[in-house]
């Protein structure tokens, strides 16, 4: 389902939500993730795509057809929100069936039954069809909302942080369901979220938004491997990419007195932001540094278990950095942690503009 949004501008009384946003998604994409912090225009973008909000200027084409001024009821879209929106007085069956029951031309009852059962089974809620939404858990209710959005064939399925209220085990399960559904359907799934992990795990393509514009759009893994702007590194990684003020002098990068290393392909002298993904700050419990790596000794400010990893917040000199370890153990506040960095893994961004100057070696390989 090809989608073209050009120079979209949407202003509210006090703020500009979309500020000349352009996004073109090709026909063969199953799911595009819109990654943006709360309040940076992603909900407005979804409402524009749905036809709930008009544009002040710019144009929107779906499947090559201009739908800029077309009202929501004439568009073929469905939307799922973070809050579990269900009709409390209707049984689960009728909640899911409602978009079909109001469809014109009418759909035969037997056909409605068939479609509701099919999608309910797909989402693992077919045993709850006779119940009321409030008798279900949060995860089940969100599945009902998803089933309602997917029971009808639509052009666009718009998802506004639908997993935001769910605990991480439910998120895991729903992510893989959504990924599978997006592949089976003809519709384009547009998934807006502040969480990079949702986008990384589900979507083949991603648009990173900042201040009402797309900062970078592309294949998910390429955007992660080669963030074109420091902002993308920060937004599109969990934990966020470390960005340290640094200087390049005579082929050497320095970010503090103790953190200094030679870079084979360093840019000419000046001020930069040194970008390092947390998992590239390698924690070595013992042993000497890997050849070619540079070591810093840092003080542990905090260690937080996330999934099967531990995020370490480390301080050295006046800097704070985040590192990722796969070692689940008890950590003590203020213990000394040894961190190795391979210069091949680092990124450099222009200190003033934030634009990418040098990508990591693997990033460049990934781009091909």
């Amino acid at each position, binding site marked *: 389902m090809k989608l073209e949004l050009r120079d979209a501008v949407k202003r509210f009384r006090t703020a500009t939500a979309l500020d000349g946003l352009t996004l073109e998604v090709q026909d063969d994409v199953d799911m595009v993730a819109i990654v943006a912090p709360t309040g940076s225009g992603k909900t407005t973008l979804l409402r524009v795509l749905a036809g709930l909000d008009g544009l002040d200027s710019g144009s929107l084409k779906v499947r090559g057809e201009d739908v800029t001024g077309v009202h929501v009821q004439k568009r073929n879209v469905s939307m799922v929100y973070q809050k579990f929106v269900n009709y409390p007085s209707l049984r689960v069956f009728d909640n899911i069936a409602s978009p079909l029951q109001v469809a014109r031309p009418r759909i035969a009852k037997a056909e409605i039954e068939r479609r509701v059962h099919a999608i309910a089974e797909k989402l693992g809620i077919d045993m709850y069809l006779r119940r009321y939404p409030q008798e279900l858990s949060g995860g089940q209710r969100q599945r009902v909302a998803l089933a309602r959005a997917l029971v009808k064939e639509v052009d666009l399925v718009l998802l506004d942080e639908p997993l935001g209220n769910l*605990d*991480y*085990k439910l998120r*895991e399960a729903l992510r893989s369901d959504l*990924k599978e559904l997006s592949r089976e359907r003809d519709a384009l799934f547009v998934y807006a979220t502040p969480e*990079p*992990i949702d986008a*990384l*795990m589900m979507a083949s393509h991603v648009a990173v938004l900042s201040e009402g514009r797309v900062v970078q759009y592309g294949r*998910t*893994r390429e955007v*992660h491997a080669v963030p074109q702007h420091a902002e993308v590194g920060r937004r*599109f*990684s*969990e934990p966020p990419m470390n960005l340290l003020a640094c200087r390049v002098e005579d082929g050497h990068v320095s970010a503090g007195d103790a953190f200094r290393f030679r870079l084979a392909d360093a840019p000419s002298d000046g001020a930069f932001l040194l970008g390092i*993904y*947390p*998992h590239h700050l390698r924690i070595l419990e013992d042993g000497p540094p890997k050849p070619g790596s540079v070591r810093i000794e840092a003080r542990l*400010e*905090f*260690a*937080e*278990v*996330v*999934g*099967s*990893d531990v995020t370490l*917040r480390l301080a050295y000199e006046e800097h704070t950095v985040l590192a*990722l370890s*796969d070692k*689940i*153990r*008890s950590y*003590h*506040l203020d213990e000394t942690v040894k961190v190795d960095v391979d210069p091949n893994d680092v990124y450099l961004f222009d200190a003033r503009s934030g634009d990418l100057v040098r990508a990591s070696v*693997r990033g460049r390989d990934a781009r091909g």
Partner: protein
Amino acid sequence: MARIELSGVSHRYGNDEWAIRDVNVVWEDGVASALLGPSGSGKTTVLDIISGLLRPTEGRVLVDGRDVTGLNARERNVAQVFQFPVMYETLNVFDNLAFPLRNQRMPEAEVRQRVEATAELMGLTDLLRRNAHRLGAAEQQRVSLARGIVRKDISAVLLDEPLTVIDPQAKWHLRRQLKALHERTGITMIYVTHDQHEALTFADQVTVMNLGAVVQTGTPTELHERPRRPFIGYFIGSPGMNLLEAEVGEDGVRVGPLTVAYEPGVAKRLAGEEALQLGIRPEYVEASSRPLEGGTEAMVEDVDTTGHSLIVHARMGEAPLKVTMDEAATVASGDSLWIRFPAEHVNLYAAGERIEVNA
């Protein structure tokens, strides 16, 4: 400060079914511990029994070996911090902290000294003259906690989902403060939460509850490496543990085409067990595009990325298997992948209970 013990504790509300059943747990003096379980698992009932808000239907509560089952909450000197900050909104922070001390008729000079020392410990010194209602949620929760520990005779601090109302950005800071408080005071702390990450982040000892029973008590490492039930292997860690149907062979445990070698004695010991399952975490599965000795081939069906590693969805014979691989690995759908299970990272379960074979 105190050692707390629940001995054979069961409870039911009225004539309902048992809310908790035969709970036996020891919290050693000075432990940082968590009580972890999904909602409805009975963890709040356990907390209320420790604090004295609830008298158990059966069993005993011991503090330093002394039976306190019959004592009420006020007689137990246990501080409790709830999901929502509890304080007098019209009073300033100093008077909020002083309140429980003045209630005990402590001399004012001593009150001042204790309040100031506690404020220092909780980073509240600059806020002492501030009115409580003017504080943010994280600050209010710190005041609640400080109120709990300001008394001299506190034997333990119980925290019931204390970060619920704290916004995500401020969370790590409060978590660090809790941990620092524990390291500095050595007070026994029991932290109740449904959130795996919070439990493993805070505690040195985690007690997992499910359906009214204690399923396992251990360090974060033990829960991760040697979960006693498949449920814990799934509930802790992301992705959860792979769980595969297994059977006993002559030279080890077989999972479809794959054999995990064990000493002959182990096979003999497992021979009678029914419903044998093998559990292995995705990050411990050895995987290679080249043949692995003692391994087997699996088909790659899908590859997800987390940004720092790849999660490979493979199929080994009939069984689905998740494998975590380095971000640099070159693997794609349709590839075949050699798989091996290192015995030291394998857990075996018979009828849903872990059996120790490596010891």
